[in-house]
């Protein structure tokens, strides 16, 4: 069962990414493990700041490739990107962002032409669009529709406690 969920996770990643690997860097010393679990066998030790390729993710775990070894580490153990630090802009390409793109619309050449932005000036100049709001409202789903959507996706509610100390302002979950 564990194996099949791993396989599906990797498949989903490949489907989304066109099997592209993303460069990343380890932020601490990391044990690459055979399975996405803390008690799984370690197959390789990587020092901090090792360059790796991310080839899949399953929840808290990412599948990494280093040299010819592939294994699992925690998502928090890496930073995606060439250096792991904030990346300087590169002329003539989007670098990592390009390989991540899911492309709902035009990108690539649109970087220089036809980019539609939203910034402080546009917000300051905006006059309200009631018709667009009516369109927005027309897409709303009710509880029954949302429940059916969740069921179709095999999403089941869980009991999960709030985190941290400042979470007291919003109490009580939907059961």
């Amino acid at each position, binding site marked *: 069962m564990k194996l099949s969920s791993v396989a599906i996770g990797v498949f989903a990643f490949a489907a989304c990414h066109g099997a592209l690997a993303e460069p990343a860097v380890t932020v601490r010393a990391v044990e690459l493990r055979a399975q996405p679990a803390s008690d799984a066998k370690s197959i390789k030790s990587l020092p901090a700041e090792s360059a790796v390729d991310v080839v899949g993710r*399953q929840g808290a775990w990412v599948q990494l490739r280093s040299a010819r070894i592939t294994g699992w580490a925690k998502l928090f153990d890496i*930073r995606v990107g060439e250096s792991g630090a*904030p990346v300087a802009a590169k002329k003539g390409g989007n670098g990592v962002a390009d390989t991540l793109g899911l492309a709902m619309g035009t*990108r690539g050449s649109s970087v220089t032409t036809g980019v539609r932005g939203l910034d402080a000036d546009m917000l300051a100049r*905006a006059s309200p669009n009631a018709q667009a*709001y009516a369109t*927005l409202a027309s897409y709303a789903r009710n509880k029954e529709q949302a429940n059916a959507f969740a069921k179709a996706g095999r999403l089941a509610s869980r009991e999960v406690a709030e985190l941290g100390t400042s979470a007291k302002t919003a109490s009580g979950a939907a059961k």
Partner: protein
Amino acid sequence: MIVPRPILRGAAVIAVALLPTGCGTPGTTQPAGGSDIARSVLGGYSLGGINVGSAASAVSHAQDAYREIPEAEEIEMGKDIAAGLLGAAPLARSSEQEIYVNNVGRWLALHSSRPDLPWHFGILDVDTVNAFATPGGNIFVSRGLLARVHGESELAGILAHEISHVAMKHHLADIQKNAQKNLALDMASLKSGGLAGEAARAVARVGLEGYVRGLSRDDELAADRMGVVIAARAGYEPYGLVAVLQSLAAMPQDDAALGFFLKTHPSPHDRLAALEAQMPASFETYAAANPALARYGRAFPTRK
């Protein structure tokens, strides 16, 4: 900030005259007397903690600024702000994608502390990276942000973060805090006889300015913490938001698409560090629901 008394008085009277119906105190007709007008403003749209009835101390102003706004009024306010936002950026045209995002969002919202708000979710047809929440439950995510999303759990992470802002009333508190100095001046400028709806527009302006100011770092980190909890409660693996923050951290931080977002949010690296410190090991046991992954790809096909 204390605004001079004469402006406040004018602002209060004009506000009463211009407030749309439905914003007044329920069950009362608008009173005509001066101090009653002041009170009805406080009890109505109630912006800025405007207090013209007494010698206002800094303390009472602060209290007014955090007065509980009734939900019906919060929803009206959110509608005006959302309409303003849609005046600056159009909705994406794909009704299939809009409905998909509403399904994910509505299901998540059912697991927040405010499941019964009239939640609306929209895709803004802009290339820049951003997401917005208004009071009352209007949530927007930009096409530019969705272009960096890899699946339904990542979308859920973004939407749950925005839902958390609404659940914890972050923007509402921000508007109340800032209306005192901003809205009073806007109202005063309407003295020469504005139209009905002008007051609502002034409110929307304070709300829209909130997106330029940005919320506090504490509010953003709190929404991250609450967001991963809401996603987990809704059955998603809760690391979707973490993965999105990783993707944003990997972008050139001077990318024009990120400029406005980074000016108004803590850096993705800071947010990742805060989440790592807060997310318990038990979250690692929450697995992804695989059918949800497949349908994301159908709604947002990968460009070849």
